[in-house]
Structures are given as C-alpha cells and as structure tokens.
C-alpha cells in the first residue's frame, strides 16, 4: 500500500499543483496563527505575539519552499518550471529566438545529412551475417598495389590457407540476357562454388551451386536475384521451366536468392565460374577474391597466412614477370568497398563540423547578449536564494529547448538534404542505397543537439553567473563592468568564427580552383555532339565466329552512317572516362622470325628487359579517331586495306612512343600483344596518335596500343556517332537499325558529354557541398561580426555621446569603431591562416593543379573575408557616428 501512496503523491505533486499550493499556504498560515495564539496566552500583546510567531516560523515563503524541495517528483516539477520559464524567455524575444533556432537547424540539419552519408557508406555494417568476418583477398604487385587474383593463385589460397572457413572468387560484367522476354543488358556475376557460403546466404527457392555445377563442361546453371525473379520470371515458384539465354548459351535457373542480397552491386544473375575450364596463367588477374574468416582468426593472422602462401607462389614461379604477384593481402570487405571514398567523406564531415561550430558561435553570442540584459533578473533570483547551480540549470534548460527545437527542424531538413545528396552523389559512390536518415542518424542528431545545448548552456551560464551578482543590482541594472567583459568574450567568439570560416572558405576555394584546372585540361578528344551506343554480342572463341562478329559490326557501322545528321561513325572497346577502362598488359618487341614455336618459351622473352613494354590495349576503328577528333601525329591511320588477312597493324599513343622509343621512330616496329586477345600475330606500328585522358581528366594519360577492330574483332564494343541531329532522333534511329540486324541484341545509349560530366561527379559533389558550407559559414560569421559590433556600439552610446560632446568628429568615431572591429577581424584571420596552413593538407588528395597552400587562393579568400567582415562593421560604425550627444547623455 505505501507504494500506491507514493505513486499517488508523485502524481498529485505533478498534476494538482494548484490545490497542493493552496493547502500548503493555509497550513503554514494556520501554524502562524496558532503560534501567535499561544504567545497571547503566554501574556504577550497581540503585536508582540505576531512578531514572535513570525520569528519562530522564519518566513512563510521559506518554509513553503523547504516543503516543496522535499516533495516527491520535485526535480521533475522544477524541470517543468525551468522549461516553462525557458519557453517564456524564448517567446519574449521571438526574433532572436527564430534566428537562433534557424541557425542551429541549418547546422544540425547539414551535419545530420552528411552524417547520413558517412554512416550509410562507411559505418553501416554490410547487410550480411557477421559482415565483419568477410574479407576481400588480393594479390600485391611488385609496385605494392593491390590487384585481382589469377586462377591458379586463387586455388592455392583456397586450398592452402588455414584462416578461412569459405573462400570464393568472383567477377562481373554486362552481357545480353534473354529469356521469355526481350533481350536485356544485364550485369552477371561469375562466381566460384563457395560464393554464397562466404556470405552465408541460402537461395529462398531452389538450390545453391554444387561442386559439380562448377566443373569444366558442366551443364550451365544460373542463380537469379530476387528483383530479377520478380521482374522477368514473374515470381514463379516453379523453376523447372525457367531458362535464360546468356551470351547465346541456355542456362537452367536453379535458385532464387533472397531479397536484399546484392553482391557485387547491381548483379542480377550469378553463373558458375570455370565451366569453360580455368585459366592456367598465374599472371592473368581475372577474379576478385572473398572469404569468411574462421572463428577466432584475426585479420592480421589471415593476412600473414595469405601473404605466406603468396610469397611461396612467387618464389616457386619460373616466370618472374612484373605481373606475377609479389605478396598477398586480406582487407575487410567493407573497407575494400569504401576505401577510396573514406577520406573525401571524412573531409566533408569535418567541413560540416566547422559550419556547426560557426553556427554555435553565433548562437552563443546571441545568448550572451540576452544574458547580459538579464543580469538584473539573475541578481534578484540569486538574492532570493536561488543557488548558482539552479541558475546554471536554467540556462542549460533554455539552451536545450533551443537546440532541440533547432535539431528537430534540422532533422526534418536532413530528410530533404539526404534526398538531395543522393541525387547529387557521384555515380561511383559505393553503397548509395544504404544512405538514409536512419535510427543511428536520428540518435546522432539527438546527441549532437544535446552536446550543442550543454556547450552553449554551460558557456552562457558560466559567463552570466560569474562575478558578484550583487554588483549588478547595485549598478541599477546597467551592468557596465559585466557587459564590458561580455563584449570582450563576444569578440573572442567572433575572432574564432572568422578563423574557422577562413579555413572552410580556403578549402572551398582550393577545391574550386582544382575543378577549374581540371576543366582546363585538354582531354585529347572532342566531347560534344557524340552519341555512344554500347553493343555486346555473345562472347565467342572460334576465329570464324569472331570474323562474323567483325562483319556484323562493319554492317552496323555502315548503316548507322546513313542516319540523317550523322557525319561519322566509329567504334572502340570502351569510351574514354568511362568506369572500368581498358585492359593493360605487357607486349614484346619482336620480329616474325623471333616468335617462339612453343607458347612456354614466351616466358623467357618477358625476362628480357629490352624487349618488353607496357601499355593499355584498345580495339578501335579508323572512324573512332575521326569522331573523337584524336589527331594522327605521324604515319597513317587504319584503312580499308587493313583486312583480316593482311598484316595486322597498330597505332600507338604519343606517350607510348616517347616512353618506349625515346629519340627513335617507332613506326615500322613490330610487337606481340597476344596476351590481350589471344591472337599471336604480330602488330606493325603504322602511326602515332595524340594522347587521350582515358582514366579521368585529372589522371595522366596512359600509353596505349590501338588495334583494328576488323583485324582483332571483339564481342563488346561502343559505337560512337558524330552527329548534328537531335540525340533522341539519332538514338531511336540507331536502335531501329540494330534491331533490324538482330533483335536479340540490346544496346545502351549515352552521349560523350554525359560521360565527361559524370567523370567530374565526385569533384563536383565535394565542391558543391564544401562550397555550400563555406558560404553558409561566411554569412554566419558576417552576421556574427555585425551582431557583436552593433551590440558594442549600443552599449557604448553614452561614451560615444561624451566623445562627440567633447569634440570628436564623425570620422574619429567611425575610425574608432572600425579600428576596434578590424583588430578582432585580423586576430581571427591570423588564427584562421595558421589553421588553414595546418588543415588544408588533409584535402591535398582532392586537389588538382594547385598546392594545398596555393598563395592565390589564400590571398583572395583572406581579402574576401576581411571585406565582408569590414562591411559588417561599417553599418554599426555608421550608426555610431549619428549618435546625438544630447540624446545619448539623457539616454540613461
């Protein structure tokens, strides 16, 4: 029963406070009366009796307060009281409150939005069972880079390791897939037997691959993703009749994977690797490796294990080419997916953190200004017995109200912001689908708001309640002394704001200059007016079938040339600047007589340094160079005489010519580059063409060997069309022509300018965001300067009045105020400069063509910031010059 009584009292204390209070008041007063009565009975006069009673009671309000303090739920009631009082305070200055809430909302919202991206991409665990036990496996090249794994090396890793419970290799590519419906270009994963075991995924319908499915010559089977199953197999439970034509071979659908399993990303179908037999080369790096650690094995142990196996392979190999692995490495899968995006994302998070600091500084200044107006009120409360802790709590409560309000609005804004960020995000940002305002993001926003509140509240509270509050009362509320130190603190805050803003704006400036420099780079080809069509035919090995494909492409190009408005048509393995790029490898300089009889003897030739060269390998047509405007510098281009049976020819990029044949003429030399396409016929170099930035405008152009599509056919090409006509018309005409030739072949269209623009995606993304943060910080800092100066001028009205009365001219006043402002600004700029010099190094990897301490950017940004801050000082300074001494002196 006592528990019930306690709960009842708790609730009564919270709910029926009014009645409680009246009851208490009556009780204490009746006590007073009883005391007085007693005193009268003891012989005192009524006045004396009253006085003695009061003495004994010790103050009605004090007793009541003591009772209140001991009530159950008192803490909660006082929190409510603080909140009520806080809300009243905030409503008293609706303008200031709105500014503070909006400022915090902007900063907290932006931070939460960026955190959503950071969380989704970097921190959120991968959606698999015990994802942190899944590792990516790599070979390490002689240069120390991570590379994909060659088949025999993978087999050794898998069979000899003691660290993994399951290991698989995989790769993926886009091929044409047709089933019941239209042919569709589909991303297909090629995986070894234990692939699903690594991820601990079971098909929801049907079965996993078995060991026999992955043997050479096994009947082709395929696993489909949940999405593909729903879209193309009409979600049928019965798979017995489901077959898919992939690359012209018929595959039996044996299983459907559960919703949400999507690895590698965008893959819709998985087929077993090695049904055509394994590649026996230890230097053909065709597969990614992935494995699940055994229980209790650490990443370091696994690394040592794989590394030892790799070094054994390296030492045992007879063919010690540069392409042979040097070492092996194990990296957590999540890190391997997000590796490159980590530092730019952390830079963004840092930048938005700076914005948050600048915003908090503004709010802190506004709160300080409010607190100095409240000095008198604080003094009265403290005189009435409020402990300092209680006043501090009051400030904390107010700050919490503000920041939760701001945080709430900010989170609403973050929902919009995240949608915008996803829209804006570059195509190569991994794990885009896992970015959302999730529960951890909301928790983060709540924590952030609380931290901001504690910071702001504690700061203002300590500032406002320090010193002797009785002085404030004594001064009749003018509080000149307190306010003087108040404006000094305000100026320190503003200087810090300027410093942080300077760092941000310099960062944005460096990124902006980098983008400008990148745009100045001559890509080596024409960008506009080019429509590209990706076409992939089934992969074939037989030379005759390959020749047929060449004829098909020749036909296709011929017909495309007839489209009205299309001037020129060409084709190449892939477009420059596209993800993926070209294959690269080592070629041999040799003559016809030097070609070894046995393939094994090639190994020895690769050890002769004077014979080898390294280059990218691109299959192209003559038209490709004309469409893209890649200039022929020397020699000749491919032409119609270069048929399949005439000597095979190659043109090389200028960079290859100068790198491999410095001071010589490469034209006429013959090279062997058969490891690229299996064709061992020699290539005669007939021409030199201009360099192309294949891997991005900010990446150096790489040495390239171009071969003729009609001599070295390949199944997948990108057709390029130079046209004046409307892109849509060209696209539909081209699609019609392709369908007329073969309705089974799907195509993908895009313009080269789209590819060009997409290649700048991450740069643009970083610049837009950091630029936005920098501009927001600049506005906030300017507002901060303005606020502090205006406040300082209003506080000094009387002093200025005296100065004017004593003969100071408006120029003197103006220069006094501006001088005061300038000192603050310069201190901020100096601090910011030091910060920028130290911090811009972190963005060095994002820069191009400018150093992290680019003097031009630094100078321009410093001038901009000083100009903006001075302008913000000028308006209050002007107001100061208009002070009428008569009014000012009467003012108080």
């Amino acid at each position, binding site marked *: 029963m006592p528990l019930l009584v306690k709960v009842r009292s708790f609730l009564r204390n919270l709910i029926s406070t009014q009645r409680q209070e009246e009851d208490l008041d*009556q*009780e204490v007063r009746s006590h007073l009366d*009883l005391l007085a009565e*007693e005193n009268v009975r003891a012989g005192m006069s009524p006045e004396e009796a009253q006085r003695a009673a009061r003495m004994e009671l010790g103050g009605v309000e004090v007793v009541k307060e003591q009772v209140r303090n001991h*009530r159950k739920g008192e803490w909660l009631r006082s929190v409510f009281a603080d909140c009520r009082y806080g809300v009243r305070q905030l409503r008293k200055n609706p303008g200031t409150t709105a500014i503070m809430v909006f400022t915090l909302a902007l900063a907290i919202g932006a931070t939460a939005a960026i955190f959503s991206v950071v969380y989704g991409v970097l921190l959120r665990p991968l959606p698999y069972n015990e994802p942190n036990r899944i590792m990516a496996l790599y070979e390490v090249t002689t240069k120390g880079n991570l590379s994909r794994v060659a088949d025999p090396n993978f087999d050794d890793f898998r069979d000899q390791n003691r660290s993994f419970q399951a290991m698989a290799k995989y790769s993926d590519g886009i091929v044409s897939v047709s089933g019941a419906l239209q042919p569709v270009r589909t991303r297909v994963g090629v995986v070894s037997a234990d692939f699903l075991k690594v991820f601990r995924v079971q098909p929801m319908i049907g079965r996993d691959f078995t060991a026999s499915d992955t043997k050479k010559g096994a009947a082709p089977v395929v696993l489909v993703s949940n999405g593909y199953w729903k879209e193309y197999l009409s979600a049928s439970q019965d798979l017995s009749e489901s077959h898919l034509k992939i690359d012209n071979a018929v595959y039996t659908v044996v299983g459907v994977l559960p919703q949400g399993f999507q690895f590698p990303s965008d893959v819709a179908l998985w087929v077993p690797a090695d049904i055509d037999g394994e590649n026996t080369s230890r230097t053909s790096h065709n597969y990614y490796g992935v494995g699940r650690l055994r229980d209790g094995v650490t990443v370091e142990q696994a690394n040592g294990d794989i590394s030892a196996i790799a070094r054994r392979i390296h030492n045992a190999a007879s063919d010690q080419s540069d392409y042979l692995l040097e070492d092996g490495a194990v990296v957590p899968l999540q890190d391997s997916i997000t590796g490159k995006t980590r530092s730019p994302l952390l830079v963004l998070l840092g930048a938005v953190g700076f914005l948050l600091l600048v915003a908090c500084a503004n709010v802190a200044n506004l709160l300080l200004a409010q607190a100095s107006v409240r000095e008198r009120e604080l003094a009265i409360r403290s005189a009435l017995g409020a402990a300092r802790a209680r006043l501090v709590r009051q400030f904390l409560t107010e700050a919490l109200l503000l920041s939760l309000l701001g945080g709430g609005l900010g989170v609403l804004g973050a929902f919009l912001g995240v949608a915008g960020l996803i829209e804006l995000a570059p195509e190569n940002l991994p794990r885009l689908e896992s970015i959302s305002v999730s529960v951890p993001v909301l928790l983060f926003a709540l924590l952030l708001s609380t931290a901001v509140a504690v910071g702001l509240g504690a700061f203002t509270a300590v500032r406002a309640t320090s010193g002797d509050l009785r002085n404030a009362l004594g001064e009749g509320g003018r509080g000149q002394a307190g306010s003087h130190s108040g404006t000094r603190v305000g100026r320190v805050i503003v200087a810090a704001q300027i410093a942080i803003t300077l760092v941000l704006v310099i960062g944005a400036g460096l990124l902006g200059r980098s983008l400008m420099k990148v745009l100045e780079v001559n890509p080596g080809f024409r960008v506009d007016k080019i429509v590209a069509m990706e076409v992939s035919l089934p992969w074939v090995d037989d030379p005759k079938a390959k020749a047929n494909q060449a004829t098909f492409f020749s036909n296709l190009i011929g017909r495309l040339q007839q489209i009205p408005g299309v001037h020129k048509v060409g084709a190449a393995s892939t477009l420059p600047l596209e993800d993926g790029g070209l294959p690269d490898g080592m070629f041999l300089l040799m003559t016809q007589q030097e070609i070894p009889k046995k393939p094994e003897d090639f190994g020895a030739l690769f050890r002769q340094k004077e014979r080898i060269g390294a280059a990218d390998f691109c299959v192209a047509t003559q038209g490709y160079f004309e469409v893209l405007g890649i200039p022929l510098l020397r020699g000749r281009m491919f032409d119609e005489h270069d048929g399949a049976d005439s000597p095979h020819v190659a043109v090389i990029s200028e960079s290859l010519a100068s790198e491999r044949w410095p001071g010589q003429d490469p034209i006429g030399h013959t090279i062997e580059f058969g490891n690229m396409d299996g064709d061992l016929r020699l290539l005669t170099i007939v021409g030199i063409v201009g360099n192309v930035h294949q891997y991005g405008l900010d990446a150096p152009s790489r040495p390239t060997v171009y071969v003729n599509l009609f001599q070295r056919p390949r199944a997948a090409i990108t057709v390029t069309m130079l046209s004046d006509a409307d892109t849509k018309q060209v696209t539909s005409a081209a699609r019609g022509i392709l369908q007329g030739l073969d309705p089974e072949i799907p195509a993908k269209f895009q313009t080269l300018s789209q590819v060009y623009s997409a290649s700048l995606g991450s740069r643009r993304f970083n610049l837009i965001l950091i630029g936005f943060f920098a501009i927001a910080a600049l506005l906030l800092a300017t507002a901060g300067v303005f606020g502090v100066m205006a406040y300082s001028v209003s506080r000094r009205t009387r002093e200025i009045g005296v100065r004017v009365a004593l003969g100071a001219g408006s120029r003197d006043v103006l220069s006094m105020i501006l001088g005061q402002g300038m000192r603050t600004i310069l201190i901020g700029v100096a601090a910011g400069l030091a910060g920028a010099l130290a911090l811009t190094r972190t963005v060095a990897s994002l820069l191009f063509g400018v150093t992290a301490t680019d003097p031009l950017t630094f100078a321009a940004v410093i001038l901009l910031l000083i100009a903006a801050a001075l302008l913000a000082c000028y308006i209050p300074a002007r107001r100061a010059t208009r002070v009428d001494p008569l009014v000012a002196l009467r003012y108080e």
Partner: protein
Amino acid sequence: MSSAPTNLLQGTLDLLILKSLVTGERHGLGISRRVLQITGQTFHVKPGSLFPALHRMEEEGWISSFWGDSENNRRAKYYCLTKAGRKQLEVETKRWDRISWAIAQALEAS
C-alpha cells in the same frame, strides 16, 4: 537546543514525530510541542524542519492528514499515524535502540 542536530541523525526526527502521534492526531504546532514535552524540553522542532518532514512522511504513507478545528476553533491541518506508520515506528525504534546501545558501548570503552 535547535533543530539542527536532528538533521544530523536522519530518522531521529521521523521517530520523534511518529512517537508524538501515537497518542492521537495532532496539528503541526501540537506535534512540535508534544516533541518538546516528551523529550524533556530538549528537541524544539522548528517549522522549517517540521513541515518538510511531515509532508515527506505523508508521501511515504506513514501518516495521513485532514483539516479539522483546533481547541480554539481555528482551522488546522491534523496528522495521524497510519498502519504503515506504526510499523515504521517499530522499525525506527529498533534502529534507534541499536544505535544508542552502540554509542553507549563506544563511550564506555576506555
């Protein structure tokens, strides 16, 4: 003696108030005077300690209150022991006995 020492011994004030109510309901002043009487004029419980204690004990459910008329027909708030209060009195008494025995032992030791 002022009420300050009673604060030092948490529970002593409770014990005295409970004890003062054993003989029947009393208002605040009545309790204060009764305590003074039964402690041989030693403990003068001032309102600043008395009321918080009364309200706290009421919330604990040891005493209950009602409004009534004093001997001189003044309205006053009266307190009386509840069942839980009587139990608490037993607990507090035992505790006090133990403390006073322990203190006595300590003082007797040489």
